[in-house]
């Protein structure tokens, strides 16, 4: 039977756990930053040498970490695209513009454990030679912005930020930047335009790949809140141990936001692919099933931008057979493992890992009209 596996939200809901520095330090806070700073350089088999920063970047790549914002792209690969030879500063932006309908996972991290995000961010910035970074938080989270500002001030006071951090010679500043209620700011080039003080119109790719021409036309990394938190745990566990969490090519944990017609809506952290859609919706440890007397009509599996799946659908998934050959296997909707690849093969996506459940009392046209109105308003 599937169960929660809390890595990112390990402490967040523990009684007495508070979002301040003192509490975070009591729970081993900023130890992984120190560990990252102490990473030894590595000699590779081909005679080349990896700097400590390159080692951490390589660990993130080998961990298999995929972006938790929506696209599910390899975080390590994204970092590898950064133009490090341009001579321009490299920027990092944490995308905290959580606004994909159905999604409320980053909210938990920001409000309950902001230092975890900041520690993950400092490690990520250091590994990528970033000296100035921003947290772009959606405008409708004013308390979250205040909490982050307080946490950043606490981190400055401890010299985890600022000049010559912990005597390493490394300088970094992080600022909070508030959006003002436009969904399009969640798209990374729109977000960059917004951070430059403009309307958040997305840029055309190519040529404006953020890794090369991002903020102020400089190389820029844009990572989701949850993604940056995972970096801390990759440093803590090492890439190979981390990659044992979840399933192959779908490593680590993910916070799933569950809403709509279930008994227990809420957020549940799972090992990626270790729980099925059916388990997340129906198990007592998760959604607890639909309300009594109701039947499933449809599932929106990965935020409102993902393709809606109908109750009773059966999908053809590629699976490795006993003979090692790939074969197509029939997988009913509720047996779909909740991971990046299975949902993609089912013709939809896990997106921002937000599941909205729709029962048989609903008119599907009404539901989709509601979402169409959202997109009409936001475009």
């Amino acid at each position, binding site marked *: 039977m599937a169960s929660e596996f809390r890595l990112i939200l390990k402490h967040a809901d523990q009684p007495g756990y508070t979002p301040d520095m003192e509490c975070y330090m009591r729970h081993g806070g900023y130890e992984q930053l120190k560990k990252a700073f102490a990473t030894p350089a590595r000699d590779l088999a081909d005679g080349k040498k990896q700097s400590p920063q390159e080692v951490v970047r390589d660990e993130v790549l080998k961990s298999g970490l995929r972006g938790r914002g929506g696209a599910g792209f390899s975080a390590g690969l994204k970092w590898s695209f950064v133009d490090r030879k341009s001579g321009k500063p490299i920027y990092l932006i944490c995308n905290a513009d959580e606004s994909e309908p*159905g999604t*409320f996972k980053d909210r938990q991290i920001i409000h309950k454990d902001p230092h975890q995000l900041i520690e993950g961010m400092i490690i990520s910035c250091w590994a990528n030679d970033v000296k100035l970074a921003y947290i772009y938080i959606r405008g*409708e989270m004013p308390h979250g912005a205040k909490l982050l500002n307080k946490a950043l001030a606490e981190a400055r006071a401890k010299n985890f930020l600022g000049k010559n951090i912990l005597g390493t010679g490394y300088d970094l500043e992080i600022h909070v930047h508030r959006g003002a209620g436009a969904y399009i700011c969640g798209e990374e080039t729109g977000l960059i335009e917004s951070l430059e*003080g403009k309307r958040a119109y997305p840029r055309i790719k190519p040529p404006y790949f953020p890794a090369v021409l991002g903020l102020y036309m400089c190389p820029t990394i844009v990572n989701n809140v949850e993604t940056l938190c995972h970096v801390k745990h990759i440093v803590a566990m090492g890439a190979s141990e981390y990659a044992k969490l979840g399933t192959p090519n779908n490593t680590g944990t993910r916070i799933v936001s569950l809403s*709509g017609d279930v008994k227990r809506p809420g957020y549940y952290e799972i090992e990626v692919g270790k729980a099925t859609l059916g388990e997340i919706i129906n198990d007592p440890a998760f959604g607890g099933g639909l309300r009594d007397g109701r039947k499933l009509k449809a599932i929106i599996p990965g935020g409102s931008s993902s393709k809606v799946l109908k109750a009773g659908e059966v999908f053809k998934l590629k699976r490795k057979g006993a003979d090692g050959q790939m074969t197509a296997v029939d997988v009913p909707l509720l047996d779909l493992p909740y991971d990046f690849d299975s949902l993609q093969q089912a013709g939809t996506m896990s997106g921002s890992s937000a599941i909205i459940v729709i029962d048989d009392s609903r008119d599907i046209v009404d*539901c989709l009209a509601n979402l169409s109105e959202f997109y009409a308003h936001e475009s």
Partner: protein
Amino acid sequence: MTFSVPAILEAEIDELITHYPVKRSASLMLLHAIQEHFGHVSREAIEWVALKLGLQPINIYELVTFYPMFRQEPLGKTHIKVCRTLSCALAGSGVLRDHFCKKLGLDSHKHGAQTTPDGKFTVEFVECLADCGNAPVVMVNEDLATKVTASQADQIMSKGRAN
């Protein structure tokens, strides 16, 4: 009346500008600071922010008209934003908004933000507030109210009336 920014707010604004290598980037943060203080962003405020950042007023005006959170007119003292997107809609946010409108004498068939004649309340439908597990959610000024029932809505309104 001439537009003037108190020294303490201007000091806050000057500090915000230092966060960015390019001044223009501070636009949204300045507009937030102005709106929090004055309740809205007036034409004079737009010109003031533009001057502060070495920009043309149009550069700021186009932000105020693009980003839904900025408003050019004062709103009610208690600003009630009811989430209308799917998860909240499934949990009855349409009925909830109607309840607010009815109790406050506003027209629930009208689109957009509506303010009561006494200036005490503004009610509007907004898009996803990112707390769908606690649907229906309502933002009351800066605070988020979750799993809002009709009786909680009544409490929100009686608190607002006392303001």
